[in-house]
């Protein structure tokens, strides 16, 4: 076997070009060493305060995407008319002209007939500004559940509480960190590389971490304490802790709840705020012993708790309503749900409130803030469930009990981008809820326009998984058209949607599929035309997305000449828009979503075709002024800086944040009426609640039908979304880790079932079944089966990911009873039966 000798390259050789990583959505600052036009090394940019010079495994492996021998570097045309899983498309290279003209002809025909017949899957998060392309085409449809998997309920609740998009605990000041179903600071979620450094620094100064997770995740393994828990019951654990604080210890931040939230607002028996003659929300005036408008009584005289009678009506404060609910959520009751011992719930609740230092203050840069160095952090695993709205609300309210929302040491909102929190005054002194931050909520409509029923979820995000229901039963949902074509842009709906069989059936109905991507995936195999895009090391982008500690853009720029005959995705989308006659609308859409409408001197000319460089130059100048144009970014790399205390801590000033989400309840009442008016009396609205409580999900109910175990999936820092499994450096590492070696099963469970590592097993849920090899490990709850997302590629023309098997999403379903009825949030856990398969 021939070997190739290579000499080490000096770090001083060539040049180091600043850019941003594109291996996940967050875009860490990087420096790329380029020698003789070849990129040789990627390192974190130490000048960028976002990632502080750090870089995760994916970022380090970026070169193996750039130089991947299996990349698609020429436009391709399918020559095999037969489509199906594992069917070779028999690709043939074609010219860009042939590719563009074919796509423009096919999609143009659809657009002329009924643009709603186009389904789109857009998955390139870093280019979120481009996600409006389908809208200007005329299609309202969103055919993927990628984002909904994680953020379906998470983002709407964040936006409704404090105008943020995401949230994470304060790495700098937190001393006691409860981590629930999240990889923040350890393996995933917000800006991993910098967050891991910040987490490590916090641990060095003594911060304690308690991790709740069904699996001994990286966070759990590194935490001071791992608390194994049944999936989907994290909320019960936290409700039990809230019971301890409110009913047993009676320790909560009364001043914060009374003065900074709507918790003291009076609520009537029907759940609405009690309004005075002046139309204002009322509070209970303890001096007058009567209701009074919220802004007409000194704070000290407002009652936070209590049940009152006024003019024959029973009134309770919002806080009192939740307090009454919590009386039936004792640690013992919640222990039965979670399997966590009641004494553990009590102990952690006490540790948490002790660490919170209620009443303490801290001075930062001359300004005094409340100091609450204890916070509960959470993400996908703990809230991507069919009661996700309740989950998210519970975690927010528990944090509010100690007054730690958006204060030093506490639980901090994270804005979507450089524009910061969405802050505007709402009703009765409250911050206006902003559940939708990616687009305005479409008004209710029946029949709906969108196949994912966005018109039916006014506070939710795009519930892509509903496509599997609606497209196969269009009449049931009032859909009066059937999609015929699909545009897939760096997405993989066949991988990330539940019920793969149904997705295949839907895709088989498509008359035309075009994909824009870098490499072959499960979904690109179904395409008729493949338009090859450039990687992040060959293209432009100004990136600022969900930064937890900083703000400002970093520039992605080409570090080498593009490989093959590829195009920047911006160019591809613009070319298609131009050929189909809507480039003017495309430019106007960019004018809106990029904020150029607020600075009209930067408005794009609707008739002009812009290059990527021209576009990003305008974008840079519109945000930073004429001096910081694209050339400035090419040289300096980024304009990232730390967020100031004023931008970070209580940026909404004196506006009250909602503790009692009357807005949700009221929206539910309105939706009930609308559904009833169109004859949809059975459509559920039961999750539109002002306060969270425990109720069994469908997943828990499935346990009564013989599905004894819970199945979960997980990812770690090695991989992201759908496309890293084909990267040799990453798959080589993950293949050597037993955690990714098979279907994780606890030794006690394995003994009970007579299984050993390596045994072939089948998992069957109410929705489907998968097969895999048992991997017996201690680090998983006895009632839980774990499937790494490393395993979940089921078929691809790329030999590196082909037949990895154990495609977890086949166990899930897009049915409404597994969907949060208020947010459209997707249930990410399944109940399963386990059986050994004879090999």
């Amino acid at each position, binding site marked *: 076997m021939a070997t190739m000798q290579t000499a080490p390259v000096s770090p001083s050789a060539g040049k180091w070009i600043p850019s941003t990583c594109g291996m996940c959505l967050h875009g860490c600052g990087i420096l790329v060493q380029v020698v003789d036009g070849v990129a040789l090394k990627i390192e974190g940019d130490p000048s960028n305060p976002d990632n502080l010079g750090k870089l995760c495994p994916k970022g380090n492996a970026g070169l193996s995407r750039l130089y991947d021998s299996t990349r698609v570097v020429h436009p391709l045309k399918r020559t095999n008319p037969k489509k199906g899983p594992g069917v070779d498309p028999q690709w043939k290279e074609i010219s860009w002209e042939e590719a563009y003209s074919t796509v423009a002809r096919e999609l143009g025909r659809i657009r002329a007939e009924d643009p709603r017949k186009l389904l789109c899957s857009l998955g390139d998060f870093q280019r979120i500004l481009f996600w409006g392309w389908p809208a200007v085409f005329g299609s309202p*449809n969103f055919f993927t559940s990628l984002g909904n998997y994680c953020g379906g309920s998470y983002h709407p609740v964040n936006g409704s509480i404090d105008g943020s998009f995401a949230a994470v605990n304060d790495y700098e000041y937190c001393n006691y960190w409860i981590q629930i179903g999240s990889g923040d600071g350890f393996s995933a979620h917000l800006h991993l590389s910098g967050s891991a450094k910040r987490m490590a620094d916090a641990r060095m100064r003594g911060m304690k971490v308690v991790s709740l997770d069904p699996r001994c995740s990286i966070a759990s393994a590194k935490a001071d304490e791992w608390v194994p828990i049944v999936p989907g019951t994290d909320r019960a654990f936290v409700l039990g802790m809230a019971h301890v604080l409110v009913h047993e210890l009676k320790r909560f931040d009364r001043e914060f709840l009374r003065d900074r939230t709507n918790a003291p607002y009076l609520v009537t028996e029907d759940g609405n705020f009690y309004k005075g003659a002046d139309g204002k929300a009322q509070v209970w005036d303890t001096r007058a012993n009567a209701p009074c408008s919220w802004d007409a009584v000194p704070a000290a005289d407002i009652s936070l708790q209590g049940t009152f009678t006024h003019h024959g009506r029973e009134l309770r404060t919002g806080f009192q309503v939740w307090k009454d609910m919590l009386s039936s959520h004792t640690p013992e009751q919640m222990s039965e749900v979670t399997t966590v011992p009641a004494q553990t719930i009590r102990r952690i609740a006490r540790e948490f409130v002790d660490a919170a230092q209620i009443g303490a203050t801290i001075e930062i840069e001359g300004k005094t803030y409340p100091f609450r160095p204890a916070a509960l952090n959470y993400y996908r695993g703990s809230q991507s469930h069919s009661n996700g709205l309740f989950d998210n609300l519970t975690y927010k309210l528990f944090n509010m009990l100690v007054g730690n929302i958006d204060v030093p040491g506490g639980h901090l909102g994270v804005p979507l981008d450089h524009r910061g929190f969405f802050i505007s005054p709402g009703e009765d002194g409250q911050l206006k809820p902003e559940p939708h931050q*990616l687009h305005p909520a479409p008004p209710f409509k029946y029949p709906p326009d969108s196949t994912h029923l966005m018109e039916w979820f006014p506070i939710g995000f795009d519930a892509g998984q509903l496509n599997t229901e609606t497209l196969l039963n269009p009449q049931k949902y009032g859909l009066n058209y059937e999609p015929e074509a699909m545009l897939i842009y760096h997405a993989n709906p066949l991988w990330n949607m539940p019920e793969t069989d149904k997705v295949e059936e839907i895709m088989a109905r498509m008359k035309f599929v075009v994909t824009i991507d870098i490499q072959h995936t499960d979904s690109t195999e179904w395409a008729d035309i493949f338009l090859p895009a450039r990687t992040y090391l060959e293209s432009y982008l100004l990136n600022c997305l969900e930064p937890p500690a900083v703000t400002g853009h970093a520039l992605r720029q080409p570090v080498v000449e593009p490989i093959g005959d590829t195009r920047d995705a911006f160019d591809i989308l613009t070319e298609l828009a131009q050929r189909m006659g809507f480039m003017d609308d495309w430019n106007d859409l960019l004018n809106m979503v990029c904020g150029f409408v607020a600075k*009209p001197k930067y408005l794009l000319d609707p008739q002009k075709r812009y290059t990527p460089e021209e576009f990003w130059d305008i974008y840079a100048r519109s945000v930073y002024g004429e001096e910081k144009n694209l050339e400035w970014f090419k040289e300096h790399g980024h304009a990232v800086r730390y967020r100031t205390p004023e931008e970070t801590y209580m940026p909404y000033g004196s506006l009250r944040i909602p503790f009692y989400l009357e807005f949700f309840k009221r929206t539910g009442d309105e939706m009930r009426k609308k559904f009833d008016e169109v004859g949809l009396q059975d459509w559920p609205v039961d999750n539109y609640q002002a306060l969270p409580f425990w109720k069994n999900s469908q997943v828990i109910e499935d346990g009564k039908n013989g599905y004894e175990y819970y199945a979960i999936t997980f990812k770690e820092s090695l991989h992201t979304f759908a496309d890293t499994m084909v990267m040799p450096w990453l798959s080589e590492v993950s293949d050597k880790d037993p955690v990714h070696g098979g279907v994780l099963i606890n030794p006690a469970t394995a003994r009970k079932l007579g299984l050993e590592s390596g045994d072939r097993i089948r998992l069957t849920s109410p929705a489907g079944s998968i097969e895999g090899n048992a991997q017996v490990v201690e680090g998983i709850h006895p009632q839980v089966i774990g499937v790494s997302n490393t395993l979940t590629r089921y078929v691809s023309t790329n030999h590196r990911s082909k037949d990895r098997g154990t495609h977890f999403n086949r166990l899930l379903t897009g049915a409404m009873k597994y969907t949060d009825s208020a947010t459209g949030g997707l249930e990410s856990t399944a109940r399963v039966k386990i059986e050994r398969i004879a090999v």
Partner: protein
Amino acid sequence: MANANIAALGSTRKLLGFSRRTVEFERATVADLLRDLKTLDGRTLYDHLVCEGKLRGDFAIVVDGLSLGADQLDKPLQGGEEVVTMAILRHLHGG
């Protein structure tokens, strides 16, 4: 005479038949400005964008970077304003 720079985006551009124009006025509100903007179908932009005196929910007007509320069409123009009119696109996707 004072003037304002109009930028019409999306469907409002198509209604008006132009994307940019500077218009002159004397003592005008935003509503007056909309009434003066003739659309290709012989009506005015006010007719298309306003219902019962309020800006329709599927349109937006931005004056010097600030989006007007539905009931703020009586905002007086001083001259030199940058006025952007547009239809709101609600299906931008996300998650």
